[in-house]
């Protein structure tokens, strides 16, 4: 399968994981294989099961069924304080009554590491995350970004086999977020650490991971690299959760689905189908252009940096979300302008069964 783990025995192997809270099914038969040194993101809306999956791996939640193995060792058999995983919590969960150095050294102290070695390893990791000069501060005196680095350092210093990060960037403001994402990815890659991020933020998932696992209703809907998740979603759910999408109704017959404007898409389905067209895969034409598959009017234009995002309503009531380069002829359309729309690249469209 596209995006499935390929290689030797996976480093992290999750299979058949199921968890119910009363009537609510938080995890339904989840399977996921992760390679050594890979960064995987669990992406989904709140309540999709991603946090429950993370908590099962860490040992905070006991699954009803299934197995988790890390480096070929049965992880579920281990108590929470013996699992080879480091967790970076959503709000970092730094100990407020301990300095930065004491927070980071805590795990080593609990393991009975001699004081001298604790000091040395804490100093090393502080240098790695560029926090050496803040080692005597208390968490309350740190910025959000600094707190996050302390939390990461605290999880890494005990040398876990797997790093788990729960909405690690949530508490940071948007400006800081992109920089910290890139920095953290580089750090994890440099250390060769295997990591699982949990997030509801698709931009974060696409920016930071080698592969993305999109989750919904306690199941993993698709696991693939970020580009395939965007370009080749396996279901309308994945398509709509990642990126902006236009889902167009069409008919398929004889192995071909046809969109207005004569665009032909090969498909194995027949009858009613849905076709995914991404916003930048539309060409905005003059209303009179013969190539146009749809006629409509601009209802709304929102400049977003180098592109403009338009909302265009067709005569039949369909609403399109369309992106155009701002320095193109279609970059300066005012509301009410009549336009024609055509699909640029048929091969970039994805056909789904209508009932899917």
């Amino acid at each position, binding site marked *: 399968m596209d995006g499935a783990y390929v290689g030797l025995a996976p480093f992290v192997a999750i299979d058949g994981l199921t968890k119910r809270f009363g009537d609510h099914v938080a995890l339904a038969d989840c399977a996921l294989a992760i390679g050594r040194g890979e960064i995987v993101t669990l992406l989904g809306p709140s309540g999709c099961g991603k946090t429950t999956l993370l908590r099962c791996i*860490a*040992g*905070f939640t006991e699954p009803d069924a299934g197995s988790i193995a890390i480096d070929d060792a049965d992880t579920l058999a281990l108590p*929470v*304080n*013996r*699992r080879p*995983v*480091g*967790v970076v*919590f*959503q*709000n970092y*969960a*730094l*100990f*407020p*009554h301990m300095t930065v150095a004491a927070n980071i050294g*805590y*795990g080593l102290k*609990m*393991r009975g590491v001699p004081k001298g070695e604790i000091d040395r390893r804490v100093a090393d990791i502080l240098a790695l995350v560029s926090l050496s000069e803040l080692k005597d501060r208390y968490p309350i005196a740190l910025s959000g970004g600094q707190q996050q680095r302390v939390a990461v350092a*605290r*999880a890494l210093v*005990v040398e876990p086999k797997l790093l788990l990060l729960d909405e690690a960037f949530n508490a940071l403001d948007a400006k800081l977020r992109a920089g910290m994402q890139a920095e953290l990815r580089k750090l994890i890659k440099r250390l060769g650490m295997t990591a699982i991020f949990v997030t509801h933020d698709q931009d974060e998932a696409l920016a930071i991971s080698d592969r993305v696992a999109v989750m919904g209703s306690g199941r993993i809907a698709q696991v693939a690299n970020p580009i395939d998740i965007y370009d080749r979603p396996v279901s309308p759910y994945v398509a709509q959760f990642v990126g902006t999408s236009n889902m167009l109704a069409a008919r398929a017959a004889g192995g071909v689905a046809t969109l207005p404007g004569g665009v032909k898409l090969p498909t194995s389905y027949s009858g009613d189908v849905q076709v995914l067209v991404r916003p930048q895969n539309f060409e905005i034409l003059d209303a009179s252009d013969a190539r146009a598959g749809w006629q409509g009017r601009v209802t709304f234009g929102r400049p977003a940096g180098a592109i403009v995002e338009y909302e265009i309503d067709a005569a039949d009531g369909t609403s399109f979300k369309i992106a155009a380069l701002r320095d193109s002829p279609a970059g300066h359309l005012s509301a009410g302008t009549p336009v024609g729309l055509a699909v640029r690249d048929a091969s970039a469209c994805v056909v789904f069964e209508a009932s899917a």
Partner: protein
Amino acid sequence: MSGAKRLALTDRIGVAAIYAIGFLSLALLVAPSLIVVAISFDTRSYVSFPPVGFTFDWYVKLFATPELIRAMWVSLKVGLIVTGLCLALGVPTAIACVRGRFKGRQALSVFVLFPHMVPGIVLGIAILFAGATIDARPSIGLQSLAVACFILAVMIRIVMARLMRLDVALEEASANLGATRLQTFRHVVLPLLLPAIWAGAAFTFIEGFDNISVAIFTHGHRDRPLPVELMSLVQNDNTPMVAAVSAAQIALSVVILGVVSSTLGLEKLND
């Protein structure tokens, strides 16, 4: 826009009323203590205000009265035993009520407050009669047990309130970093609970020292605690020595509050 700068008349009356109520409340809180302290230095041999002279005689007399000294020791012992009992029983109970995963947890956390809801006199009589059935006579031990039973709820509530505001993720983080449950308690939960525990200890000590409603039925016949002694003093000879004893107690409370506020910060009592 002169109206924006000057408050409307009704608002000014409101502000004045708030100030008035504030000063009145402060006066009601502080004035009785000040009056008691003032009377304790009076030269007359009966209680009256304002004092007409100044003398330390009543304090000298107080420390020369063996029953009062003995009563102070009894109250001190009761205060310490009550504090010890409340720490030993209250802190674990509070943790069980907040972090526990057992049936009846909710019921327990309501039930432990019950003795505090019963009037102290009723509780005192109940414990006196209950003690009699198992041959536990009125004594420092029975009195301490009774007062601890009465005031335990305060310790539990203070610690519970703090614990409920403690992020569970801190305990999970500790476990994730390799700590056993005991280590997590020792290094994370306990240090963060300490302000609440100290506050609870201060309140329970003062109650143990000062309680009369429960103590009056349960104290030992030879071991009369200070409040009981003081009450008979007021009934029998109403000299300013009563005020001197009260002033000494006020001093003790001020010292305890001073220690708590300088080591923990008074604002942490509300945490």
